[in-house]
């Protein structure tokens, strides 16, 4: 092998090799050095996006309930919003998904005996109470309007009300109130009532897409957030929405129309179907990531009787995966292949197989009330669920249903969805309960608690109600000590609904001769004492139920604190006037 080599080439090889050796040793030296850890702990940003202020809107005591003369008034006017909360995406100028189009309904009842809804010779109008922004170009602009009678029914409707939750003077209010009035043809006022027309722009895209809230640090979709949504959409789907948005707001529904011939899935199926893959294993907090139901938010729209019974979104609508699957199954039935891809990795939560989830069309097929309510007995609050039990069509939805006589719509008496009477509105006590409070001074279903006379002007047995079978709870009267003077209606106690509790919880001294009543001699057997000190004594009869450590109120309040299903805490809920009948 040794032969003549060029000296220059030799020198080149030598130096090149030396450089390589030095470089290798240098890498070893660099690698051998100790390196401190980059970060050691949390930075402030590594927390969930800042919760909204505890009370973002000023707490609004209700002062505007119109008066009602129970003896002389001939009419009852009841009004409600169809959705209980209208969700608006305030993402202009980038895109429009859910424009403001609130819907108001009202029914005018001529009081009885033999009450009936009034459809002729009357004019029903609505008017927004406090100044709110309304959207120009919505079907109904401005802060007032007239309601039209629905075809073939007795309900007056106003749709497409472009109300927004922003006051012209500044601030956010998801619960603007409307005053609804009924005038006869001569212009005489027949009845007036107040109701909320809830609307919120607290749509939480920013929770994942970043960016700040658009308005007041509480609501609205800022351009940064809106841009990220479009950017992601473009990247995933090969669209050019970012470029389009630079010229005019993109209308999501232009592609996601839900029409059979549209290539893209319906808006609801696309949104839920896509995002369900990114938001699994959650409960109602997943819903609150986008919908205005966050318990720390400025809307908190889940506020009705169902909430008091510790139901959350998932009990009726299903967990996110199930919710998405029901929509996607409908899309697959409609022949849209993209739905299969979205559904592929979703694992059903409430059922074992995807095929067990019933397909549902968005907005038309909603959880059916009869999924829990069979009108024979009260639903079991711990387990009742209307998930997978969809209405056959939009006519069977809660907001469209009527009673067995076909006269009164369900929300007319029961209140709007998500705000069933009694609703607890976090931003104004009884904001949602204005109609029943106006007419019966009790936040409860109209006529509830044996109060049929509010419309019928005569006492009637609830068991004979022609509206729908009423489940009467079996109750037992509470034995009072001798000498008790009743200042409120006596309480009828539903013993059976407390059957799952340990008997000793209430019968805490056990049983004597097989019975133990509260007013047993030696227990809570004294009527109202004369002294103030005596009011706190255990022997005082009232303290068996309103005591500090034990009692109906004590227990109910504690359960409510924990967010569990609890019994009533309002005075009239136990001391119901009808009890005296």
């Amino acid at each position: 092998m040794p032969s003549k080599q060029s000296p220059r080439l030799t020198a080149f090889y030598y130096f090149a090799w030396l450089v390589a050796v030095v470089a290798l040793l240098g890498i070893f030296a660099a690698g051998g050095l100790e390196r401190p850890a980059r970060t050691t702990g949390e930075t402030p940003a590594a927390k969930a996006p800042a919760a909204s202020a505890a009370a973002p809107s000023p707490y609004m005591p209700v002062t505007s309930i119109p008066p009602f003369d129970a003896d002389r008034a001939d009419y009852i006017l009841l009004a409600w919003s169809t959705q209980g909360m209208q969700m608006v995406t305030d993402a202009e100028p980038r895109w429009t998904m859910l424009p403001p189009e609130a819907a108001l309904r009202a029914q005018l009842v001529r009081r009885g005996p033999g009450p009936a809804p009034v459809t002729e010779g009357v004019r029903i109008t609505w008017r927004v109470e406090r100044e709110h922004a309304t959207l120009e170009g919505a079907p109904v602009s401005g802060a007032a309007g007239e309601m039209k009678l629905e075809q073939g029914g007795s309900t007056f409707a106003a749709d497409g009300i472009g109300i927004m939750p922003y006051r012209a003077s500044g601030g956010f209010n998801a619960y603007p109130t409307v005053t609804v009035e009924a005038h006869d043809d001569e212009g005489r006022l027949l009845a007036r009532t107040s109701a909320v027309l809830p609307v919120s722009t607290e749509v939480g895209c920013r929770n994942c897409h970043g960016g700040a809230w658009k308005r007041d640090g509480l609501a609205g979709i800022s351009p940064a957030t809106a841009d990220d949504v479009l950017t992601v959409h473009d990247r995933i789907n090969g669209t050019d929405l970012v470029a389009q948005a630079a010229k005019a707001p993109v209308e999501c529904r232009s592609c996601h129309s839900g029409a059979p011939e549209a290539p893209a899935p319906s808006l609801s199926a696309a949104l839920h179907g896509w995002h369900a893959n990114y938001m699994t294993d959650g409960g109602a907090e997943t819903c609150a990531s986008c919908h205005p139901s966050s318990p720390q938010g400025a809307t908190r729209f889940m506020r009705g009787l169902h909430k008091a019974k510790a139901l959350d979104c998932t009990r009726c609508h299903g967990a996110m995966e199930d919710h998405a699957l029901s929509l996607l199954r409908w899309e697959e039935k409609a022949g849209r292949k993209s739905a299969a891809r979205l559904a592929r990795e979703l694992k059903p939560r409430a059922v074992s197989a995807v095929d067990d989830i019933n397909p549902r069309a968005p907005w038309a097929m909603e959880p059916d009330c009869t999924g829990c309510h069979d009108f024979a007995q009260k639903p079991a609050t711990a387990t009742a669920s209307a998930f997978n039990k969809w209405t056959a069509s939009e006519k069977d939805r809660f907001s469209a249903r009527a009673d067995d006589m076909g006269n009164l719509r369900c929300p007319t008496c029961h209140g709007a969805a998500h705000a069933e009477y009694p609703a607890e509105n976090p931003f104004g006590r009884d904001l949602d309960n204005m109609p029943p409070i106006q007419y019966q001074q009790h936040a409860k279903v109209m006529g509830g608690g044996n109060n049929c006379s509010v419309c019928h002007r005569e006492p009637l047995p609830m068991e004979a109600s022609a509206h729908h079978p009423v489940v009467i709870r079996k109750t037992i009267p509470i034995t009072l000590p001798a000498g008790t003077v009743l200042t409120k209606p006596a309480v009828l106690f539903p013993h059976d609904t407390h059957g799952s509790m340990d008997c000793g919880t209430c019968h805490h001294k056990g049983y004597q001769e097989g019975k133990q009543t509260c007013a047993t001699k030696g227990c809570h057997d004294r009527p109202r004492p004369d002294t103030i000190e005596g009011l706190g004594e255990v022997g005082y009869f009232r303290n068996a139920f309103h005591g500090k450590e034990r009692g109906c109120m004590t227990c109910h309040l504690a359960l409510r604190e924990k967010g569990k299903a609890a019994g009533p805490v309002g005075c009239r809920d136990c001391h119901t006037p009808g009890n005296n009948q």
Partner: protein
Amino acid sequence: MEPASLIPLADAMPGPAWWFEILLLLTFVLHLLLMNTVLGGTVIVAVHALRKPASEQGPVRDFATRLPTALALAINLGVPPLLFVQVLYGNFFYTSSVIMALWWLGIVGLVMLAYYGLYIFAINHDELGTRRIAVIVLALLLLVATSFVFSNNMTLMLQPERWLAWFERRDGALLNLGDPTLIPRWLHMLVGSIAIGGLALSLFHVRRASWGAPDAAEGIETGLRWFSHATYAQIALGIWFLMALPRDLMLRFMGGDTLATAAFILGLIGTALALLAARARSVALAVGAAVGTVTVMAVMRASLREGYLAPWAQPQPVNFVETSPLVLFLASAVCGVAAIIWMLRLMRSSRKGA
């Protein structure tokens, strides 16, 4: 944290363990002999380059030109033992490799640059002038560094209790320096290489003596001298290595385990034989005894490995049987070896114009 919980599960093998142990041992011995030739040979060449001027490099000059070829074969023959050690002990070996990943990956660069260094030394020897000393010394250091890295990995893989150090330093820069057997083991390998390198030098010159090359006798003499001195040093290092072992493992070779003890005794006999043969200037006998000793030492090494790993017994997965792939391998080995022999014969016999 329990070291035992850190040991990954072993994968199933396509055959019984004893079969792969045999393959591992045989191929490792071949690799060892060639690697020793290169490493030891480079030591000898480097020392000669340092000590003597260029004009007196006779005996080692031509030997040095064979080193790159020897390295090529050493690397190639390193592949099967690396393969079989992964089949048998992969769960230990990969782990220790990751723990010292920086150095382990570094051997690729070390070996490649040593290889190029040996080629530059061989091809451009005269043109380099005195720079050739830097080249051969650096190449030697690169090879020595490689051997050190290997000793670290081979000892670390056997001691899961030392793996816990990874939790303090995860960037692959750890070594097994805390192990008292590391240095004596490594030096034993290193000096053993020098011994074998010396024999290789002698063997090289035996062939050249057959056609009357002038410095052949000196070459044989030089090689045997290196061999003898290195082997004396080996005896001392071997004792040090043995005593540095944990007591129960040391006793394995002194009656604790039959195979290990027999191998030890045979190894001592072989060493003595080789030294005597060297004294008697019988290169063939010395080479034969040395190869035998190296083989027996490899058996000892395998037994030592078994002893280290015994407390860490793992659930063995059920091995599956695959005959046809084995047949493929054996058939290719037979054909391959046959072709190699044919080519080498051809090279010797075929003459241009004949």
